[in-house]
């Protein structure tokens, strides 16, 4: 009747296979999660780059422009008819083209902004008048799209915005070496425009820069000071607990709420200008402050108390112990937190919509109160535009924004690695 009880080793061994199987399954699960997220990322970046890289090239047409004195009415250079110069030049290239509507179709190949470029040239150098010069001018965005292959020639003529006749002219120009794709400097030197070929992101970049400067100048000192006070000076009581909870809550408030607050307080109450980077910066300051305070407090906490004791022990005052020892040691962490906060602010759209930074603004802003937009809002605006050429510009602007963000995060990682200290 004696039943043999299995030894502990037997029981353990029997369960072993199952345990290892579980472990393997868990590992596989984690690995597939990583792979899935990597694939999403690759897909995201891939589609953005695939859509956007063509925007960095732009069709340019080379025309022999004769700066005719008669046509320019020298006494009034500003109001002269520069478009006529282009039309004359085009007519010389295509002598067969006749009739009002055909001529108009021919001239549509050149961007409507070309006339302004000629005007700028003449205004800056009146000596050009009376001479003939080979000039590089932008082409219309439809021609640009055709050159880049975004408009298919196989599509029936009625369904594309460029006619067979125009395609033939374009081919002739390309053959003559007068029309080609070149690096798109306009994209980096111009503000927004209704014409895709004339639009650029400089306005948005400058707007973002002014906005971030305001944000940085306000949120870094305020955030650090608040963190130092809370961490080093504040007595630990109900009030500080209350403040701490609220700062953490503030970090979780949806950003559009800060936009509404900015609208109510800065615009309506204080009467600051709409669409201004100054107000955008103020709103983003409210939004990034909690991030910076939390990061700064964590970095102050990580400074070992022994350093404070060492300083106090040789007779440093509390202020000296903090400014001479604690702050320098906590600074890399604080800066990392600030950069991450800034990166958040750079990518923020919603609160800025509320204070009018979503307006269509052609001029590149030159100060903190000039109306302007910012990079993510520019992306939003372009994504909303119907022209095919704005699709690639949207993606290109995203690429620029991502480049900035990656650089900022790179700096944050670099700082963290460089000043990482072990005690």
């Amino acid at each position, binding site marked *: 009747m004696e039943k043999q009880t299995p030894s502990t080793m037997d029981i353990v061994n029997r369960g072993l296979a199952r345990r290892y199987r579980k472990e393997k399954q868990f590992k596989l699960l984690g690995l597939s999660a990583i792979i899935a997220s990597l694939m999403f990322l690759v897909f995201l970046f891939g589609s953005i780059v695939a859509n956007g890289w063509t925007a960095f090239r732009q069709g340019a047409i080379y025309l022999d422009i004769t700066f005719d004195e008669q046509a320019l009415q020298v006494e009034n250079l500003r109001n002269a008819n520069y478009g006529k110069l282009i039309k004359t030049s085009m007519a010389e290239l295509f002598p067969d083209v006749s009739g009002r509507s055909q001529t108009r179709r021919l001239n549509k190949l050149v961007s409507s902004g070309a006339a302004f470029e000629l005007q700028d040239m003449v205004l800056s150098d009146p000596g050009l008048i009376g001479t003939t010069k080979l000039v590089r001018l932008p082409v219309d965005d439809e021609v640009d799209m055709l050159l880049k292959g975004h408009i298919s020639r196989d599509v029936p003529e009625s369904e594309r915005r460029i006619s067979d006749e125009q395609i033939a002219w374009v081919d002739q120009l390309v053959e003559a070496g007068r029309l080609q794709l070149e690096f798109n400097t306009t994209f980096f030197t111009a503000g927004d425009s209704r014409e895709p070929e004339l639009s650029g992101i400089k306005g948005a970049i400058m707007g973002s820069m002014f906005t971030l400067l305001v944000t940085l100048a306000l949120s870094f000192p305020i955030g650090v000071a608040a963190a130092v006070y809370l961490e080093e000076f504040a007595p630990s009581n109900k009030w500080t607990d209350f403040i701490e909870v609220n700062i953490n809550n503030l970090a979780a408030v949806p950003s559009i709420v800060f936009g509404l607050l900015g609208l109510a307080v800065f615009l309506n109450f204080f009467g600051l200008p709409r669409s201004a980077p100054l107000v955008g910066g103020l709103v983003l300051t409210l939004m990034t402050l909690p991030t910076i305070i939390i990061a700064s407090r964590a970095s102050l906490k990580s400074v070992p108390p022994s350093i404070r004791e060492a300083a106090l022990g040789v007779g440093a005052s509390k202020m*000296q112990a903090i400014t001479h020892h604690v702050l320098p040691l906590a600074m890399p962490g604080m800066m990392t937190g600030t950069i991450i906060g800034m990166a958040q602010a750079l990518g923020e759209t919603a609160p800025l919509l509320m204070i009018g930074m979503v307006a269509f603004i052609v001029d590149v802003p030159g100060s903190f109160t000039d109306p302007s937009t910012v990079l993510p809002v520019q992306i939003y605006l372009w994504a909303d535009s119907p022209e095919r050429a704005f699709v690639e510009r949207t993606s290109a602007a995203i690429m620029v924004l991502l480049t900035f963000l990656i650089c900022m995060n790179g700096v944050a990682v670099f700082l963290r690695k460089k000043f990482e200290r072990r005690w």
Partner: protein
Amino acid sequence: MGMDTVLDMGDTFLTGKNTLGAIDSVVEEKVDREDRTTVGTQFVDDARMTCRDVNVFYGDKQAIRSVSIDVANNEVLAMIGPSGCGKSTFLRCLNRMNDTVDICRVKGEILLDGHDIYDKSVDVVPLRAQVGMVFQKPNPFPKSIYDNVAYGPKIHGIVNSKTELDGIVEDSLKKAGLWNEVSDRLDEPGTGLSGGQQQRLCIARAVAVRPEVILMDEPCSALDPIATATVEDLITELKEQYTIVIVTHNMQQAARISQRTAYFHLGDLVEVGATDRIFTNPLHQLTEDYITGRFG
């Protein structure tokens, strides 16, 4: 360890003592374990620091109960006792380092050269310049060796010129017995030194502000035996110029370097006396229990 165990062990000890006449012949009768009034020579004539009826509380919890003791001029006073008995707490009262602990309250009177250091009018900054401190774990600033030592003199404005500062740094490092090892690399980080060197650097840093009293909280507990021996020699030398109060959990160390020893037990100062006498012939039963290794 609760009091019960201590008492149990005491019973066996008592019975044992009756059979061992040798111990009896040294001292007539030990003070009973339940009696916590300080026995021995807690007061001296040439006192540098005078502590009277000091009580320390962490919140509601009392960590030090009515301690009265003098620290004599140019002596090494060792404080021993089981861990958690309040040695560090008491030591940190002597330069008001406890001020940094929010919940800590100190009652009683602590005089340095006749002035109450807890008086409202006393500023802790000059006090800590007078009463320096060396901590348990070496804690050099993550700066150069030179800057570590120069920091104190700089903030107190002790020096007027760079050469004077150089002099103080050299002098302090020599006093700490570190000069020969680091004289050619003063601009290297202090944190790059070995543990023993770091602790001597901390001693040099404390010495550089020319304190009168130096407090040391288990300065050798993080060091290896050789580094410990070096620091002990150093303490013996420093005694010529400074008054030193040292906390140690190492009884041999207390025996080697101190002139007087104070034994703390669960917040009470149980016994004070000449070190030789304490270790050969303790007056209090608890002291004897501790030095014979009954608890620690």
